[in-house]
C-alpha cells in the first residue's frame, strides 16, 4: 500500500553530535521546491505503522546539483530515532513539498539572515539562493561549537559571509545570536529569521524599532501538514493562521507572539 510518494534514501549520515543529514531522491518534486517549504515523512518500516503514527515535518535543507533533497534532522524522540536506521536504497513515504516558502524576489539588497539551532537548516537553502544577487550576511547561533560545526563548514564552503554565536563561547561570539546582531549592529534592508520562538520574538521587537521588514519561519506541532485539522495554528494580526498551509513562512510584521 502506498501513501504519498515513495522516495529513495540516497544516504543518511551523522554529521553532528545528535543530528543527521538525509539525502533523498525525489526528482518528481525538486522543480517545485522553494526554500522555507517542508516535507512530511511517514517514518516506520510499514507505511501503516502505528508507532509513530503521525507524519513528522522537516524543512528542506538543501538541493544537490543532481536535484536530490537534503534534510537535516536532530534526534529528539521516537520518530527521529527510527529515521536514523534508514539506509541507502530504503524507501520513505513523503508528502510534499508543503507550505508557503520564503518570498524571494530580491535583487541588490542588503539582506540579513538570522538563525538559531535547527532553525538554521532551512536558512542554508535560502542563503544559497539569495547570495547570488544580493549583499548577504548570515548570523547563526546555538549552544556550543559542537552544535555549530556542521553549519560553519557549510556556510564556509558556500562562500557566504556569516558569523557565529554560542551560549558557552566555544565558537564565535559568546551569547545569543540576537545579542550578536545587536553588537555587530548590521542594518539590513530586509531580514529573514528562523529559530526558537523566544528568539523570533526578540528579532521582531528589534526589527520593529529599526523599521526593518522581513519574514520568519515558524514551527508548531503538526498532525496533517496539509491544512485540514487546525492543529498547527499560530496567532497573527489576521487571526489564527495555519503554519502548515499559510506558513510556515510569515511576514515578520504579521506574527503575534504571546509573552
Amino acid at each position, binding site marked *: *500500500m502506498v*501513501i*504519498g510518494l515513495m522516495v529513495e534514501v540516497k544516504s543518511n549520515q551523522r554529521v553532528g553530535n545528535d543530528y543527521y543529514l538525509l539525502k533523498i531522491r525525489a526528482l518528481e518534486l525538486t522543480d517545485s521546491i522553494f526554500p522555507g517549504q517542508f516535507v512530511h515523512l*511517514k517514518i516506520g518500516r510499514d*507505511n*501503516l505503522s*502505528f*508507532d*509513530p*503514527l*503521525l*507524519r513528522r515535518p522537516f524543512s528542506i535543507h538543501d538541493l544537490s546539483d543532481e536535484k536530490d533533497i537534503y534534510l537535516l534532522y536532530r534526534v529528539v524522540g521516537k520518530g527521529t530515532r527510527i529515521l536514523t536506521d534508514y539506509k541507502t536504497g530504503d524507501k520513505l513515504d513523503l*508528502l510534499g513539498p508543503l507550505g508557503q516558502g520564503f518570498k524571494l524576489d530580491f535583487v541588490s539588497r542588503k539582506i540579513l539572515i538570522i538563525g538559531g539551532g535547527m532553525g538554521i537548516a532551512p536558512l542554508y537553502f535560502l542563503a544559497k539562493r539569495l547570495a547570488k544577487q544580493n549583499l548577504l550576511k548570515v548570523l547563526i547561533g546555538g549552544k556550543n561549537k559542537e552544535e555549530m560545526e556542521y553549519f560553519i563548514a557549510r556556510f564556509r564552503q558556500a562562500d557566504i559571509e556569516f558569523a557565529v554565536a554560542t551560549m558557552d563561547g566555544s565558537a564565535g561570539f559568546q551569547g545569543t545570536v540576537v545579542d550578536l546582531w545587536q553588537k555587530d549592529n548590521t542594518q539590513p534592508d530586509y531580514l529573514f529569521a528562523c529559530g526558537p520562538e523566544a528568539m523570533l520574538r526578540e528579532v521582531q521587537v528589534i526589527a520593529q524599532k529599526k523599521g526593518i521588514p522581513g519574514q520568519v519561519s515558524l514551527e*508548531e*506541532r*503538526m*498532525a*496533517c501538514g*496539509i*491544512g*485540514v*485539522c*487546525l*492543529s*498547527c*495554528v*499560530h496567532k497573527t494580526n489576521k*487571526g*489564527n493562521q495555519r503554519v502548515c*498551509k499559510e506558513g510556515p513562512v510569515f511576514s515578520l510584521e504579521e506574527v503575534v507572539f504571546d509573552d
Partner: protein
Amino acid sequence: MIELDLTTRLASLKLKNPVITASGTCGYGEELKEYLDPDIPGAITVKGLTIKPSVGNPAPRITETPAGILNSIGLENPGLEEFLATKLSVIGKLNVPVLVNISGHSLDDFAFLAEKLAPYPQIAGLEVNVSCPNLAGGGMAFGTDSELVYRVAYRVKENYPGPVIIKLTPNVTDIVEMAEAAVAGGADIISLINTLLAMAIDIDDKRPLLGNTFGGLSGPAIKPVALRMVYQVASRVKIPIIGMGGIMTGRDAIEFILAGASAVAVGTATLIDPGAVARIIEEIKEYMIEKEIKRIKDLIGQAL
C-alpha cells in the same frame, strides 16, 4: 467479476458507498482535493460549527500517544454568519452529501443553529456533537446526561426538517442509555464515537503536555472501544448507525459494519494518509470480492 453494490442508506440519505469523512479531519472538503477526489467519499462531514466564531484552544493542540493522537483543537471555526457567507458556497459545489456538524453550549444554541441551517438544500443533514460542555447547566457535557441528549435531539429535530444525526460521546458509563435517549428525542441516525477524554504529561516540564490540559484521544488506540460501543448500541437500537473510531483500513471498516454500522467515518487516518478514504473504499471492495459478497448492506450487523 461480480458487480459490487456499495450503496447504503442512513434514514432518508442514500450514500453511494459507506465511507464518510469524519468531522474536523477534512476541513470543508475542498482542503483535501489535491489528495482525495471530493466525489469519492460516501459523504463529507465538515468541521464543527458554533454560533459565534471560536479561536480554539492554546498550543500545543496535538500530541501523539501510543497508536493514537490527542487533540485539543477546541472547535476553532468561523461561526455561523461567516459559514453561511463563505463556506456554504464551497460545500454547495460538492457532489456528495455534506453533513454539517454543530455544537452548542446551551439547548437554545442547538435549536438556533438547526433553525438557521434548515433553509439550505446544500446541506444533506446535521450531525449534532453533544460532547461539548453545557455552560448553562454547570459545564457537564450534554452527551453524558441522557435527559439532555433527549432534549438536544428533540430541539434540533423540532427546528430542522432534514435528517438529524446525534453524535455520541464515549465518555459515559452506559452508551446504550444515551443512544436510546437520542432515539426517543427523534434522532434519525446515531454516530459514534467521538474522542475519548484523555491527557499526556511532559515529564521534563512536569506539566500537562497540551495547552488545554485535556484532549480527545482518537486513532487506532480507540478502535476496540468504539467497536464495542457500536455493537452494544446496534444490539438495542433500530435506527441506522455511523461507526467511527480508529478506522485505518478497509478491514477495520468491515468490523464496524459487521458490528451493526450502516456506514463508517474516517478521521485520524486522513491526517496521516490524505487519500485514506479512497484507499479504504478500495480495500472494502477487495474484501467483498474475496468473500464473494455482492451487497455491502448484507454485511450490516452480521456479527450481532
